[in-house]
């Protein structure tokens, strides 16, 4: 690579704001102004694209119907809706988790499957009803591992382990959802903000 190109590539973006700042606010013509140019065709406005969640519904296909019902109840308990603030269900987090775990390595999939099955099993044993049908008090009994102090080593019990993972992931998936951000923008499509995303280089 020639140095000139290398320096140009490095300097261009950094220099641009400075060059703009140096530009005088108005141009003082040294010569009589040229005749006005023929009007150009207006530039097209920047195109506004969307994301799948804004215009379509997710298709769930990883968890069974019963596991999905358990997951939905769990999501609702972890991040309930509040006035003006969609909860995990409104943010379609169960559907998102179905996609995420369906895309995960087998070990993580197995953990979630056995964790959700275990939660359902405990609900049937303790209350003779599906976890999806438990009331808040019954559910809180089953979510007892979430009242244990945090430890670095994840619990051995798959239910406790999935509950700890869900507590983190459901929270992130809800807070980073389109729905939650749209609500925070007063019902308008959210714009701006976010972090620096590193593009793939090819």
């Amino acid at each position, binding site marked *: 690579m020639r140095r000139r190109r290398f320096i140009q590539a490095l300097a261009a973006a950094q220099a641009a704001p400075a060059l703009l700042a140096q530009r005088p606010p108005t141009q003082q013509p040294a010569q009589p102004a040229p005749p006005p140019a023929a009007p150009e065709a207006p530039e097209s406005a920047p195109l506004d694209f969307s994301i799948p969640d804004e215009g379509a519904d997710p298709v769930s296909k990883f968890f069974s119907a019963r596991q999905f019902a358990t997951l939905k109840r769990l999501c609702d308990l972890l991040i309930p809706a509040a006035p003006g603030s969609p909860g995990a269900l409104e943010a379609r987090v169960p559907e998102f988790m179905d996609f995420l775990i369906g895309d995960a*390595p087998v070990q993580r999939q197995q953990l979630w499957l056995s964790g959700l099955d275990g939660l359902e099993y405990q609900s049937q044993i303790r209350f003779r009803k599906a976890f999806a049908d438990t009331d808040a008090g019954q559910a809180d009994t089953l979510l007892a591992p979430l009242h*244990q102090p945090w430890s670095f080593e994840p619990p051995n019990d798959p239910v406790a382990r999935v509950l700890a993972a869900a507590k983190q992931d459901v929270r992130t998936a809800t807070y980073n959802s389109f729905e939650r951000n749209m609500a925070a923008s007063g019902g308008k499509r959210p714009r701006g903000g976010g972090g620096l*995303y590193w593009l793939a280089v*090819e």
Partner: protein
Amino acid sequence: MAATNYDVLIIGSGASGGMAAYTLTKKGIRCLMLDAGPAIDFQKNHVTKPAWELPYRGLGNPSRLPHVIQATEYDANQWVDEKQVPYTHDPSSPFNWVRVRYVGGKSLFWSRMSFRLSDYEFKAKDHDGFGDNWPISLTDLAPYYDQVEPIFRVRGRKEGLKQLPDGNFIEDTTSWSPAVQKFIGEASKRNIPITKVRSSLGRGQLASSLNLLLPDALATGNLTIIPDAVVRDITVDKNTGRVTGANFLDRHSGREMHAKAKVVVLGASCLESTRILLNSGIANSSGVLGHYLHDQFYVTQCVQAVIPEVRDKTAPAGYASGGGYIPRFRNLQTKEKDFLRGYAFDFTAGSTPDAKFFPLYGKPLDDALEAHRGTGFSGTCMGSVLPTFENHVRINKDLADAWGIPVLHIQARYGSNEFNMAKDAINTMAELCRACGWEVLARHDQPLPPGYSIHEVGTCRMGDNPKTSVLNKWNQSWDIKNLFVVDGSSFVTAGSQNPTMTILSLSMRASEYLAEQMRKNEL
């Protein structure tokens, strides 16, 4: 057109390779640099994106980077694809090999923590009897630290600590917040020093080889950089035993090429340089090439405390903010019973503790997080790892990367010295927090897997004895006079300090020696 026969072939363009180019080209030496990754425009390769636009809502593709646990969905593209360049390890001994393949290497993304090693590291064996000394001392390297620090614009505060030597700093004049002052007060009662984090300010958005070293090297007209050049092996003249260049493959097409040079300088990062040497079958008459792999163990968020004055809103705004650095304080004048050497911490005050630390869910959790906003104090422990022969890398001939180059098998685990040290570190940090009247919300003493720190070093170590080291004190192969290795693989011990300033200084020192030997025609 016949290819130029360069004076020096530099493999790698990060901190070590970049510094070699910077130093050699200024002395009129014509260099060819190969890097396995593409050239990038740091500005153009970033965009601002809200998390809701990310396909995985910020949680990241769950299958993509199993070993890069610090990766986020935002930066996933900056790390080496583990499927393209795999490596192996025993399932019971995970090693997180975190790599970057771009022109500029890891210096594009490093944490910028900028410290010198001390003679507690260079002469560690003299101090505690374990392992080996470096063949150099701080006195030998100090003149190079002195030159490197202004290039990277290291900001720090001079403290006169023997275990954390002062440097050629931009003086850090920032003040401590009241909460941190309280912490410093408790630490000083226990003879635990605290200073400001020493950090490279760089220029613009970067403190990298890409903007601080390579432009000057290119300006001399003596440097040619070829990106996307994946080096397979170093070639040797069978008659003389000297290296003659390297075979490489174009990253896109796989086309094989050979680059010729009078001298080869390896700066491809610790384990990639070692892999190239092992795949070349050279520089290993000692039998220690690939051995003595070590790094620094990290215990992240080892203690999470809550500063109650902030939660109760009895403290004024700004009471808890900022951070600091605790350099090693163990095994200096006294001797610990359970471990050799020592550890450092960095800490921050004024953050909000993570949701995972509260044994709650639903609305009570939201309420607790709101009540604890800005109340957090947390520390990360960075501990010295003993270099041992058993921790090593070797070639796994059963597996090749996307270019058909055999991969590394990595065998490394921490031992009782590291685990005992971690326990002591976390007990000490928790005690300091409690002495401040802070509530310890959570603590743990489990190091993350080896490699996590991205400070792996030691696999081509230097020494005074060709039977027990790969390189001499000038980073020059004992076996092959015109072969140099200038990255972190040359370390003998790593201490608890981040290694980049030392890598840069070693590379500058080795390159000056190389240039002088070339001038005298003694290579």
